[in-house]
C-alpha cells in the first residue's frame, strides 16, 4: 500500500514537472525592438522582396533557448487570411543565404538576437501584426504594430515606330505599363487591341498577364526584339510576313487608320489609353 502511494506521488510529481516545463514562462526572453516600415506595398512573400521586419530578441538566460515565433497578419493571403511566413538568415549585403518557416523552432543564443521575418500582403489596407515568442505552449513575450499596405498605381503609355520597306509601311506598336506606387502589381490583365475606327470591329488583339514591380515600367512585349502589335500598310500587295512573335497583326492599305487601345486591369483598377495609327493620313504617304 505504501509502495503504491509512493508510485502515485511520483506520477503526480512527474506530470506536474512536465506541465510546468511545458507552460513555463519564467524563461527570461523578451522582444526589445521591432524595426519595420509602417508603409509597405502589396506583394507576396519573395526572398528578393523588401517587405520584412527585424525583431531584436534578448535572451537573458545563460544557455541557448529554442523558441517559435508565432505571427498573426505577417503574411495575409488573397482571401484576407493570416498564414505562416518565413524567417530569413545570413544577409551578405545583398541577399539571404537561407530561410525557415515560422512553424519551425529557432535557437536564440544568450544575449541579443536579431531575427528577420518576411512580410507579405496580397490585400491592401491596414494590418495589425502580432508577434509572439513561444517556448512550447508558454508565451515569453509579445508585441504588435500596424502596417499600411499600399496598392500599385498603374498608368499606361502607347507609341509606335514606323519603318518603310519598299511599298510597305510597318508600324511597330510600343506599349508600356507604369507603376508609380509602392505595391507590386501581379497578374495585371493587359489587352492590346487594334480596332477599325469605321466599324469599331476589333481586327486583332492580344491579352497577357504582366507583372509590374513597385515604381517601375514594364513593356507589354516580353520578347527582346519584337513588339506584340504590328500594323502593315501597303500601297500595293501586302507582304506574307507573319511578324512572329507579334500576336496582334493587321495588314491594310495606305490611307487607312486604326485605333490602338491598351487596357490594363488589376483588381478594381482599370486604366486605358488609345492612339490612332498612323497619327494622320499624310504620315502614311498617301493623301486621301
Amino acid at each position: 500500500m505504501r509502495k503504491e502511494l509512493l508510485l502515485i506521488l511520483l506520477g503526480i510529481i512527474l506530470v506536474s514537472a512536465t506541465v510546468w516545463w511545458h507552460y513555463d514562462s519564467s524563461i527570461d526572453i523578451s522582444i526589445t525592438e521591432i524595426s519595420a516600415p509602417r508603409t509597405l506595398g502589396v506583394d507576396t512573400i519573395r526572398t528578393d522582396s523588401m517587405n520584412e521586419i527585424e525583431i531584436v530578441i534578448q535572451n537573458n538566460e545563460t544557455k541557448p533557448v529554442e523558441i517559435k515565433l508565432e505571427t498573426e497578419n505577417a503574411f495575409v493571403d488573397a482571401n484576407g487570411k493570416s498564414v505562416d511566413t518565413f524567417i530569413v538568415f545570413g544577409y551578405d549585403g545583398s541577399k539571404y543565404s537561407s530561410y525557415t518557416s515560422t512553424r519551425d523552432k529557432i535557437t536564440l543564443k544568450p544575449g541579443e538576437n536579431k531575427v528577420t521575418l518576411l512580410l507579405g500582403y496580397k490585400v491592401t489596407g491596414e494590418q495589425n501584426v502580432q508577434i509572439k515568442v513561444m517556448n512550447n505552449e508558454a508565451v515569453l513575450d509579445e508585441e504588435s504594430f500596424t502596417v499600411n499596405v499600399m496598392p500599385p498605381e498603374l498608368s499606361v503609355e502607347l507609341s509606335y515606330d514606323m519603318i518603310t520597306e519598299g511599298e510597305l509601311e510597318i508600324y511597330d506598336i510600343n506599349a508600356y505599363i507604369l507603376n508609380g506606387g509602392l505595391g507590386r502589381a501581379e497578374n495585371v490583365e493587359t489587352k492590346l487591341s487594334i480596332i477599325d475606327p469605321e466599324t469599331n470591329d476589333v481586327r486583332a488583339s492580344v491579352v497577357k498577364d504582366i507583372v509590374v514591380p513597385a515604381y517601375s515600367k514594364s513593356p507589354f512585349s516580353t520578347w527582346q526584339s519584337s513588339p506584340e502589335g504590328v500594323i502593315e500598310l501597303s500601297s500595293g500587295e501586302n507582304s506574307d510576313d507573319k511578324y512572329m512573335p507579334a500576336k496582334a497583326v493587321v495588314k491594310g492599305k495606305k490611307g487607312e487608320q486604326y485605333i490602338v487601345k491598351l487596357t490594363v486591369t488589376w483588381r478594381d483598377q482599370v486604366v486605358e489609353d488609345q492612339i490612332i495609327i498612323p497619327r494622320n493620313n499624310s504620315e502614311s504617304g498617301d493623301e486621301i
Partner: protein
Amino acid sequence: MKRAHESVLRNVAILLLATLFVSFGLVSGVCASGESVQMDEDNIQISEDSSILSSIMRYFGLLVYDDQDKNVTRWIEILVNRSEIEENRSYATYMLGDSGDSRAAKPFLIIIEDTEESDSLRQSVTGNLGKVGNKKHTDILIEMLDDNLLDISSAVSLGYLGDKKAVEPLMNILANESMSENMRQAAARSLGQIGDKRAVKLLIECLEDESQYIQSEAAWALGETGDERAIEPLADLLDKEYEFAVTNSAEALNKLGAPVEDMLIENLDHQDINVRKNSIYALSSIGEQSSYSVFLKIAEDRTEYEEVRRAAISALGRSDDDDLIEPLTDILKNENEKRNVRAIVPRTLIDIDEEKAIKILIKDIKIKDTEVRASIVSSFRKLEGDKEKIPMVIEPVAYLLLNDAQWPVRKQAAIVMADIAGENASGHLSLALNDENPEVRSIAAMHLAYMADENSTEHLINALENETNKYTRGYMTRALARTNDSNAVPILVQLMQDREEYLNVRITAAEGLGVHKDDNVTKALIEVLESKDDSPDLRRTAVISLGNINNPAAVNILSRVEADRDEHPRIRKSVRHALENIQEVEVS
C-alpha cells in the same frame, strides 16, 4: 631569356638527380622489404611513410607538379573561405576534384559534415570526394547513400573511388525500381567504373529497364566490365529509339570486341529513320574510319530524310580527310538543296580542315539564303582561341555585322565577333549599337559590357538616347557602367534619377556608380537614398554603391537611415555594411 635557360637547365639537372635517387631508392626499398612496388594507393602510403625514398619522392613530385601544387593550395584556400561567393567555391571544388590531389579530401570532409554550408556546395563536394579520396572514405560515402541530400553525389563519388566494397550497396540501389531515376543512373555508371563482374547480370537486366536513361548507363557500364555475356543483349539495343542507349551500346560492344560496325551499317537501311540516325551517331562515336564513305553517300542522297542527312554530315566532321571537302561544298552551294542540310555543312567543313574551310566559307559568304549565310558566320565560333586562324575571318565577319541586309546574319556576326575577336571586337560592336534590330543591338551591348572598353563610351551614350527596348537599355547601361570612364558618370546619374526610366536600368546605373569616387556621384546616390517615395530596391542599391565608394561624406545620412526604425530593414542592413566599409577604409 638567359635566366629562363638557366632555370630550365637547373630543373633538368635536379630531375636527373632525383631520378637517380628514386631508382636507387626503389631498388633498395624493394630489396629490403621483398615487396613488389605497385601503384595502388595503400602501397604508396607505405612507401611514403617508410623511408628516405618518401622524401625524395615528395621532392620529386613537388618539382614536377610545382604549378599544380600552388594551384591546389589556392583552390583549397578558396574552398574553405566562407566569405568567397559560392560560384567560386564550387569552381574550386571542381578544380580540386580534377586535380585528384589527396590534400583536398580533408577540407571536402569538413564541408560535407557542415550542415550550415549550402546544399549545392555540399553536393558538389561529395560528388568530387571520390576523385581525391581513398579507400578510407568508402564507408563514409556508403553511409551517405541514405542521405536525402547527398545520396546521388555519393553514388557518383563511389564510382570515382573504385572500391569494390561499394559494389553491393550500388547494386541494391540499381535493382530497386522505387529509387529515383537519377540515383539508379549514378549507381549504374559507378558500377561500370568499378568494373566488378558481380554487377554484370544486373546491368544486363537493366538494358530492358523502362527508363531509357537507365538503359544507356547500363550499356556504358557493361562496356567497362569487359564481360562477353553482355554482347548479345547489347546488340539487341542497337535498333532502339533513344540515341544514347544506341551510342553507348555501340561503344560498349566495340570495347568488348564485337563486330559492331557491321551491325550498325546494316541498320543504316532500317525503315525507321531514328534507327538510321542513331546508327550514324553510333558509328561516329566508335570512330570507325571506313564509315565515312557511307556517311558521304547518305549526305548526298537527296531521297533520304533531312534529319538523317544532317546526322551524316555532322558525323563527317570527325574525319580529317580533305577529299570530303569538295562534295560537302557542293551541297553547301547548291541552291536547290534543303536549307537545313546546307546549314550544317559549314561546321563540318571547319571540323575537317579549318584553314581550307575558312577559305571556302569566306568565298561563299555571300550565299543568298539567309539561314545558310548565318550558319556560315556562326561556324566561325569554332575558331575561338585559335590565334592563327581568327584574323582570317575578322574582316568578313565585321563586314557582315555592319552591312548584311538580314538581321539574323548580323546577329550571328555580332555573337561570333564577340566570341572570337575578344577586346578587338569592341570597335565593331560599338558600331553595331546603331543596328536597326534590337537583338543585334542587345548582343552588341551585352558583349561590350564584358569588354569594359573606354572607347565605346560615346557610342553607348548615343545609342542610349534612342534605345527603347528594356533589356537592350539594361545591357547598354551595364556596358557604360563597366567602361569606368568618367565621361559616363553624368549619364549614369541621369539614368538613375529618371523616374520614367526602366527600373532595371536605374538599378544598373546606380550599381555602376559605385566605382566612381566623385563627390557629385555621392551626392546623387544620397539623393536617391533620401527619396522615400522611390523604389526601395533602387535605394538599397544606392546604399551598396555608397559603401563601395567609401566617401566619408555619406556617413551622416547613412547613420541617420541606420537609426530610422521605420526604414526598410534590408536597407538598414545594407547601410550597416556600407558604414563598416567606410570605417574600415578610414581606419586603414
